[in-house]
């Protein structure tokens, strides 16, 4: 009787641990605290991707009600998926899209734009990644949506997918 009891308890313990690990390890453990504070986008001065001349964000963030600042790189795979959505946004929505080219090689970036189309009004260089840190980004891809007052109204960490694309459209067509 006692032996049987042991057997059952051991088996149930193993099953219990199996499920703990099965669900525990599956869960994404990337934690980002919710940040509801509305911040102004910092006015950085970066080099233009094409002309290499110094450009400040104050000069670019003019003449539109909404801006999308997208950090991308040609070596970043999720950027390719998100790129089609950016091109669609450019075509159909009143939003100015600005690219920050993150730790990229110029030739590869040009090829990338050739192949997947260029939705950006302006592209700025961020060769060592410091500009992305200054604006509060995590890495590539990442997008900020600003309103006319240059305030960050939405921050998208990771690629823009169908769901986020619709969220953006809703936000700007409000």
């Amino acid at each position, binding site marked *: 009787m006692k032996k049987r009891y042991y057997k059952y308890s051991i088996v149930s313990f193993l099953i219990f641990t199996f499920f703990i690990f099965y669900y525990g390890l599956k869960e994404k453990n*990337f*934690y980002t605290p919710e940040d509801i504070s509305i911040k102004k986008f910092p006015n950085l001065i970066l080099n233009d991707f094409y002309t290499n001349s110094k450009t400040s964000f104050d000069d670019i963030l003019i003449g539109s009600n909404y801006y999308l600042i997208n950090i991308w790189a040609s070596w970043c795979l999720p950027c390719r998926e998100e790129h089609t959505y950016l091109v669609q946004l450019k075509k159909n929505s009143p939003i100015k899209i600005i690219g920050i080219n993150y730790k990229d090689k110029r030739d590869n970036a040009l090829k990338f734009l050739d192949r997947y189309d260029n939705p950006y009004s302006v592209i700025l260089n961020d060769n060592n*990644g410091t500009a992305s840190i200054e604006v509060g980004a995590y890495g590539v891809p990442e997008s900020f949506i600003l309103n006319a007052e240059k305030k960050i109204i939405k921050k998208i960490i990771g690629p823009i997918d169908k769901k986020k694309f619709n969220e953006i459209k809703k936000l700007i067509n409000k």
Partner: protein
Amino acid sequence: MKTKILIYIIFLFFAFSKYSFSNDLKLENKINKNLRCLICQGQSIYDSQSDFAESMKLVVKQKIESGMSEEEIYSFFKIQYGEWILYDPEFNTKNFALWLLPILVFLVGGIVILKKFGVSKKRL
């Protein structure tokens, strides 16, 4: 004599320049150890070699060189990324229980032990 003084001056120069250099580096490392790498969570940016951490280290270096103090650098990152990035959280209304609970447990435990100990002392 003259060469001796010259050597002495050169020695002093190197000694002090080295001193200031190591001081800057010390501060940089200290700040790096206190900032959380948000990509490889659980590591400080000092420990991490991810793209994110490497860029953060560069930014910290630039900030120190531009004359910002340690506190100013922390508050800069706090504004950009939230308090989560600091390894030394502040005492506030959201987390006061976390700060006070250990002290409370310690006090209650102490009282329990004292009471028991007091009883056993009487018995002795």
